[in-house]
């Protein structure tokens, strides 16, 4: 069963892996990605993040991306979790997991979903530092990573 979860609570990648692994005996490949809060953002001295989103729209757009991924690749299960609210250094932010018969499909879909999460889903990060807070600007490299999937 696919999962789209957006909320403040933390997640357990092991639990998600268990769901991906039990997607039938035709499953040969599981690709996962986890994003963490790291200590070197746009400014130095980052102590945490605040993540805002557009409730309702967020879940709808992610569901649409999974639908697009399923049209392009042969996928068994997709699990996507994105946290919002206050996060500290080294906290988990995002999980994307995909199971498939073949590794090329699992890898491509996992990367497509991560790239488009960064460019098409209404999440905004604010970095908290010792000297104040500031909204993160979208990176040109992220924009390009998202655009390369457009045909």
């Amino acid at each position, binding site marked *: 069963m696919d999962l789209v979860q957006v909320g403040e609570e933390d997640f357990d990648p092991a639990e998600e892996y268990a769901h991906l692994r039990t997607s039938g005996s035709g499953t040969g490949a599981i690709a996962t990605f986890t994003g963490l809060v790291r200590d070197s953002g746009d400014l130095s001295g980052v102590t945490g993040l605040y993540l805002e989103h*557009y409730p309702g729209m967020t879940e709808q*757009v992610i569901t649409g991306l999974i639908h697009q991924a399923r049209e392009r690749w042969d996928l068994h299960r997709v699990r996507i979790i994105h946290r919002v609210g206050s996060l500290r250094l080294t906290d988990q932010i995002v999980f994307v997991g995909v199971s498939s018969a073949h590794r090329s499909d699992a890898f491509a879909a996992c990367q497509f979903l*991560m790239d488009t999460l960064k460019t098409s*889903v*209404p999440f*905004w*990060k604010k970095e908290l530092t010792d000297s104040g807070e500031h909204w993160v600007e979208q990176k040109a490299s992220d924009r390009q990573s998202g655009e390369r999937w457009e045909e």
Partner: protein
Amino acid sequence: MATDTITVRYFARLREELGTDSEVLALDAEQRTAGDLLNTLAERGGPWRQLAGDQPVMIAVNQAMARPHTRVGPGDEVAFFPPVTGG
């Protein structure tokens, strides 16, 4: 009529700089697209000017990504926000 209004929502940096997260506007006959609405709001001056400035503003209509030429009508929920930075 209640349906002759639209709800406008603002997020993230825009929400903070405009000092509001949403408002209900009477729908003017001249505001047929999300772009028209942006221009009308920009005429309020001050921080509102950025809505028609050089900085990219993303648009959603009824919780789906939209473009300046996307039409807006009575009862719609229109949202303006900075480029997204999740993931």
